[in-house]
């Protein structure tokens, strides 16, 4: 079975500072994708960043970067220079490569960026 665990239900950070959200996962697959999604109060799920498991280099998208530790099955998200608009719920998700089916989501981390 594939599982995704986010152990931080809530986090807060001061505007302009850096915050790291944790995610661990379990899968027996060798080829898979990992994602971080953002869900603001509008409910709209927005893809923040993706990582292919076969790539050793950590993905980066502007202020967002990941620390992918495949052996440890860890996939944390770092947000640099936090902005008020980053306030949202963040979900880590797992997807098996070659399978156009479901995403497996973690329970989510609510991030509050304070002015």
């Amino acid at each position, binding site marked *: 079975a594939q599982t995704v665990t986010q152990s931080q239900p809530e986090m807060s950070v001061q505007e302009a500072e850096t915050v790291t959200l944790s995610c661990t996962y379990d899968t027996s697959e060798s080829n898979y994708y990992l994602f971080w999604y953002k869900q603001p109060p509008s409910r709209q799920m927005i893809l923040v960043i993706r990582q292919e498991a076969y790539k050793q280099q950590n993905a980066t998208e502007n202020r967002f970067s990941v620390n992918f530790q495949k052996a440890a099955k860890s996939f944390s998200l770092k947000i640099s220079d936090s902005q008020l608009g980053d306030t949202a719920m963040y979900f880590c998700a797992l997807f098996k490569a070659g399978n156009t089916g479901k*995403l497996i989501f973690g329970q989510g981390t609510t991030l509050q960026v304070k002015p």
Partner: protein
Amino acid sequence: GAGVSQSPSNKVTEKGKDVELRCDPISGHTALYWYRQRLGQGLEFLIYFQGNSAPDKSGLPSDRFSAERTGESVSTLTIQRTQQEDSAVYLCASSLPGDEQFFGPGTRLTVL
């Protein structure tokens, strides 16, 4: 172009009634997914359609839940004899095969 749309945005119903939730995927997306999100929780997979293949219904929680899709367009999720535990946000997503899933804004269902 237009994104994934869902209707209604909010639905309040009484216990025991049937409800239908609609999803309009992005044009050309052959894959369509339904997820359920309970308050403060992550998304739970419900059902997946891919082209003309048989749908993957492995996530449907009970036989009160069903879904249909017309070709590669609109999908309807039906919940019969609703229960209070069905209260949640129901999210639809669509994608090209094996590609990024684009989500709709969801339907918030409240069962009184």
